[in-house]
Structure formats: C-alpha cells, structure tokens
C-alpha cells in the first residue's frame, strides 16, 4: 500500500495522487503537455483540446482525464502531434491572428504552442470574422480578433477577482467573448490591469495601453527558449518576460 500509484507517459514512469488528472501529474513530474485553456490555478475546462493524449489507445484531454494506475499514455507521437497541429490551425483561421504586427508576438502562448506542435502555416481557409476592438477602457484594450474562447479571463474574473467582467455568448461558430455590461464596453466595468483576468490570456486579446513593444521582437520570452522549456507566459513574472504580477 505504501507504493505510490503510477502510469507511464511516453515510456517514463509518472507517479500521481488519487484524484489528479494526467495533466496535473505530468506537470508535477516536470513533463510538458501542450495546452491553452488549461491553467493549473483554475478548474480544468477541456475546451481547446490541445492537451489531447492517447490513453490506453484512446484520445483523451489530459487536463480532464483522471490519472489511473497502469495507464499507458502517449503524448509526443506523430498521430497526436498531427491532431494538435490541426487544432492549432483551426484556432488560427477562426480568428484574425496577425503575428508579425502583434504586441504579444514572441510572448504569446498560442504562437509558442503552434511552434511547439510544428505548425508552419494555418493550412485551412481563413474565416476573417469581423470583430471590432474595444478601446473604451483607460488602461486596457480588448482585441476580440485574437480570442480563442479558452474562458480563462471569464474564470479569473469570476473566481479570483470577484468581478464577473467577461462572459461567452452565442452558439457554435457564433460563440464570442463579451463584456458583462449593458453597453458591452470594458470602459463601463471596474476591470483593472492588476486583475488576475488581465494576466491569464494565452493570446494577445487583453492588452495594456500606454506601453508596447518594450522588449524588441526577437528577444522575447519564446524567442529565446521554447514553451516546453520556459513554461506558460501566464505563470511567469513580468520581470521574466511573462504576464504574472507578483
């Protein structure tokens, strides 16, 4: 009974505690599984599907699948990488992502994961949706073109900030992020750049005004080291090129 339960991940033995997901156990063991809507500080969401792994021969989202003793988990195999690449390409064509001009380029989790899974081009036909930018707030700007519907800002604002600033509305391909005010404008909320919700976006949807491009492109977080080495931008302090306020 003293023996800690284990599963294998790409041949490596990973110990886990009862109730832990495959993702949580892998993270604790220092093994990177690419992900976007998952953030260890929040309840798993399971919507982006990028953290898909093969569990005993079946594809499962590692962020929501409980670890079990003896599981054989495969992550870095061609079959899984190909699906992840397809999912990333879907996210890139669904919105409007103009990496070369984006303030978050090089410190963007979406872009870094895309590189990690070997995505070189969006492949699919672009949807080019029309999504107006919201610049009504004195300190922050929301560029809905870059939203991937991970709902991390929704969760952070509700669970940590207690402000409930964001929500997702609409069905299917019409699903979209909204600001929870009668006018739908961020300026009408008590949102602040020090909110947790301002620090968790894995893309460049929520941006701060009055400063930009302080670190030149080419010298940013993921320009120097890949995401599997340095981790998520939301988990790293601002002083280390991340978004987290200390």
């Amino acid at each position: 009974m003293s023996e800690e339960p284990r599963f294998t991940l790409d041949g490596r033995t990973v110990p886990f505690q009862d109730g832990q997901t495959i993702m949580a156990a892998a993270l604790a063991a220092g093994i990177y599984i690419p992900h976007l809507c998952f953030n260890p500080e929040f309840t798993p969401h399971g919507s982006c599907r990028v953290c898909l792994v093969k569990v005993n021969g079946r594809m499962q989202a590692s962020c929501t699948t409980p670890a079990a003793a003896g599981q054989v988990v495969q992550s870095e195999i061609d079959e899984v990488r190909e699906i992840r690449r397809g999912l990333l390409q879907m996210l890139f064509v669904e919105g409007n992502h103009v990496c070369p001009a984006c303030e978050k380029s090089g410190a963007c989790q979406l872009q870094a994961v895309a590189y990690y899974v070997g995505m070189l081009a969006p492949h699919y036909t672009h949807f080019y949706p029309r999504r107006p930018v919201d610049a009504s707030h004195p300190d922050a700007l929301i560029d809905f073109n870059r939203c991937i519907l991970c709902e991390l800002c929704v969760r952070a604002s509700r669970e940590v900030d207690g402000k409930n600033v964001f929500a997702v509305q609409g069905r299917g391909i019409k699903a979209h992020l909204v600001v929870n005010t009668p006018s739908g404008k961020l300026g009408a909320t008590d949102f602040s750049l020090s909110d947790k919700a301002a620090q968790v976006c894995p893309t460049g949807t929520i941006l701060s005004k009055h400063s930009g491009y302080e670190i030149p492109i080419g010298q940013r977080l993921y320009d120097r080291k890949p995401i599997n080495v340095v981790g998520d931008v939301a988990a790293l302090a601002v002083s280390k090129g991340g978004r987290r306020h200390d």
Partner: protein
Amino acid sequence: MAESSTLAQTIRDIVQRHQKLPTRLLQILREVQDRLTWLSTEAINVVAEELGISPAKVRSVAEFYSFLYTAPRGSYDILFSDNITDRMLGNRELLHYLADRLGVAINGTRADGRVSVGTTSCTGMCDQGPAALVNGYALTRLTKPRLDRIVELVNAKTPLEQWPREFFEVVSNIRRADILLGRHFADGAALRAVLKRGPEAILEEMVKSGLRGQGGAGFKSAAKWQSCRNAPGEVKYVVCNADEGEPGTFKDRVLMQDYADLVFEGMTVCGRVIGARQGFVYLRGEYRYMVDALKATLQRRREAGLLGAAILGDASFEFDIDIHLGAGAYVCGEESALIESLEGKHGVPRIRPPFPTTHGYLNKPTVVNNVETFASAAKIAVEGGNWFASRGTAESKGTKLLSLSGDCERPGIYEYPFGVTVRQVLEDCGARDAQGIQMAGPAGHMISAKLFDRRICFEDLATGGSFMVFDQRRDILDGIRNFAHFFVHESCGFCTPCRVGTSLMRDLVDKVHTGHGTRADLEEMRKLGQIMRVASHCGLGQTAPNPVLDSLDQFPESYERRLRSTAFEPAFDMNAALEQARWLTGRTDPDAYLDEEILSRAMP
C-alpha cells in the same frame, strides 16, 4: 414609459409564476417571448434583475437556443423543417412560395412586423412532411393550397387557435407493433409490481432484461439505475430525455403522444427504484403542441393515485413529474447538456466523469433515460426481464422502434425485435429502389445497398431509430450537404474541433457540391473528419463527420463525378470575387477575365 412599465409588469408576473427560480430561466424566456415576440435588451435586463443574475447570463441563454430571438421577429413566426426528408418532399419550393406570397425575405421579418419566415432543423414530422412550425406549433403535410390559406390567415391576423385544426394534425403512423406498442398495458400495473415486489426485485428484472439505452448509445439501463441507487444522497432525480433531435427520428413523439402513461409509469418505477421523488420530462421545443395533453395526463394520473403523494395509497411512495420544454438545440440530446439546460443554462455538455448517476441535476444523483427506455422499463416491471430478453439478439435484447422516412411507400413507426436486417425493413416499408440508408440520423452511418444484409442491433448497426431511405433518383451528396450544414448550426461552440471543424467541413462539402472540388479536397475531408472524430469534447462533434466519412467510402462516385481534373483549386472563386469590380468598371476586355468560358459568354 407606460409601454415599458407594462413590459416590466408582464415579465415580473411570469418570473413570479416560476417562483423566481433561476433553474426556470429557459421556461421564463420562452414565456416572455410568447408575449413579446422577441427578447429585447430591456426584457433581458428585467428578467435578470427579477432573478438576481447578470444580464450576460440571461443573454447567453437567449442567444444559445434557436427558438429564442434577440432581434425583432414577426407575430407569426413560420419555420420550415429543413431536414433532407423535407427537401425530398419539396419543402424548398414551398418555402420560397410562401415567402413570395407573404412578401417577406427568407430568414427575414416583414416590415409591418406581422410575419417571419425561415428554416429550422428537423421537426420530427418526416413521415408527414413537408413540415413547419408556426410560433412553435407543428404544421404538417404542407401544400400550396394550404400555404395560400395560411397567407390569408396571417394577413387577416387570425389567432392560431382559429386556424383549421387539420393543419396541426399529427398522426402516429404505427405500421408494425411488437411487444412495446402492441401489447395492452393497464395503467398502474408497473407501480403495483414495484410496490409488491420491492425495488431490488424490479432492478433484478431490469438486469435480466438486458435493456440498453434506446436513445442509441446502448448503455445498460440496469447499471445506470443501480449506480444512481447506490450513490449517496437523499435527493435524487429521474429525467426523461424527450429531446428527440436526431434528424429523421420521431418515435419518441409517437410514444409521448399515444403512450404517455407508459412512459410516465416507467419514470415512476425508476423513481421508486433509485429513491427519487421528482422527475422531469425534457421535451424538445418542436413538440410543444403536446404539452397541454401531457399536463392533462399527469393530472389524471395524480387524481388516480398513480402520481404525486402516496402513490397507490402508500405514504412512502411519492413521485411527481414536471415537463420542461426545450427551445431548439440538438446538443441538449446529450445527457449532460440536457441537464445543464434543465438547470436553466445554455446547453454545453459537461466534463465526464463524474457521470449524472452521481452528479446530475443540481449535482444530485440522476438517471437520464430515453423515452423508449422508460416505456420498456414499465413493461419489464410487469412482464419480467426474461419475457423481454426472449426477443432480440445476444447483446441486444427486446425490440427497437424505427422511424422510417424518405423514399418509401409507407413511412412511419416500425417496431422490430433487435437483429432485423436492413433488407427486411426496406421490404416492409415499401422501399423498392433504395440506393442507400442514413441509419441513426446524420450522427449515425450511411449504408449502401451492398450492406443491406447487415442487422440492426448493438453488435452490428446501432441506432436510436432514425432510418432515412434514399432511392436511385437521389443525389447522395445533397443529403451530405444538408447534414454538414445541420452540424454547423447545432454545434454548441465549446470545443475547437467541433466549433471550427463543422464550418470547415461544410465549406469543403459546398466546394465539391458546387463543382469546385478536387481530389485534394476529398483527402482534406478525411483528415479533418478524423480530427473531429477523435478530438471533440462530446458525441456531437465526434459523430459530425460521419456522413462525409461514410459516403466517401460508400458512395465515392457522388463526389468523383463533380471533381475538377486539376490537382488543386483555391477555396475562393476568383471569377465571383472579381464580378463586382468588372461590373463597376464595365470592363469586358480579355484582360479582365481569367476564365475562357466566361469571356466567351460575355463577348459573343
């Protein structure tokens, strides 16, 4: 000012009637819309304020369901059922005819606000189409003369109650009955059995019966009931999934219309077995026409001591049933999405585990079963598990209701023991010239003639009951395209592969259908379909590529005869893109054209 205070009062009265319960939000919004024709921002804000929840939350529900409108809509809202079976019966021509005669654009509202005309997903009237809904009430067997009459009624502002009753007549078309539909059932018989023999004995009969989920997933019903019975907690729930959204299925409609007592009795037996005192029927919005009759049946059962407090005079036997109406969302047929909807939220499937049997409605242990499953359970309680298991195959006991539609002489409901061959069914319904079957709806499988000897059972062809016949005259790709558009409309939007993948798949099918596809596009469909199948969060996205993937294998010629010979064609049509510029500049010289053919037409 007076107007807005009336609006607020109307809404306050409705919310009050629902005890200000946020779990009633969907029902509240339905009623508010019935009064106001659409849900304005003002209406949404009042509902939010009265319920003490955020306006964004109310709007997220309002925007999720197809039958709720956040933009103005006509007093008469007419939606044509747009399943492929309706199309086979000529619904598109009727749709255009009606829109023309009413002077309204399709998917638009007439300037005077009187009427809107549009389309909706299958309304479950495939055996008596072309069908439509008017303000949510089912219209069947539409013809041009009938539409002419409807135009007059709309223009004369005649209330729906005064429209000819035959327009709303829904017939059952039971063509073949077996143990479920054919055998007499005395009301209360199953309740007496469970009282006399006890919950354990009835559960034992359920195990012996081998009954599996008749919605199509095939999970052992006894295991579900047992798990819920064993789950800790004082409060438990029984939910009947009557959200029969799979295009081509209408057997639950017939059961709810003609066999409601049997279904309610099955739910009550389940309540006794698992220890629940409250049940819900989640009835799809398309079936609102039967709500009053169902409520009357429930009331009759209460008065007869078959429902409510002290059932059959036993003070310890308490169970009641409430009807909850959906509002146009196929995804709510998935049991965890259905529970979310029942709680008054938008219908996004939950992460599983935990499963509803331990964490269901309001996080309490809940059994969710299909209508047909509850009806079968009531019979099993009376007749015994062995009786039921004597029909069917080794792994699929009992019988299955099939909803037959499409190209056959006798569409309707057919009850067969599991194991019947496709060929037998085709013979019985008078489908002489079938080239293919869409089995179990768009989420199921496409079967070509060389597979007609396969059997309908969980070991071979599992089905929830939809059975759409395509004869030799039909173009299979018309069906595939209809299904691809259906899934775009019905995806809930939660996960990436379904939200984006359904749109990408639709675009690829459209591209091939309109003659712009190449072999590379077919390969692309397979790859995309595979991602959707393995990566989607719930069954909707996992099965959405089925029609395309199946037909690529079973009916390759439907695609190939439309392909361009080139290896690759861009996703956009260059000539179409240039058309406006050509028109504006008036250019007809050769340099303005890319395509020889267009050039020859423009310059004779």
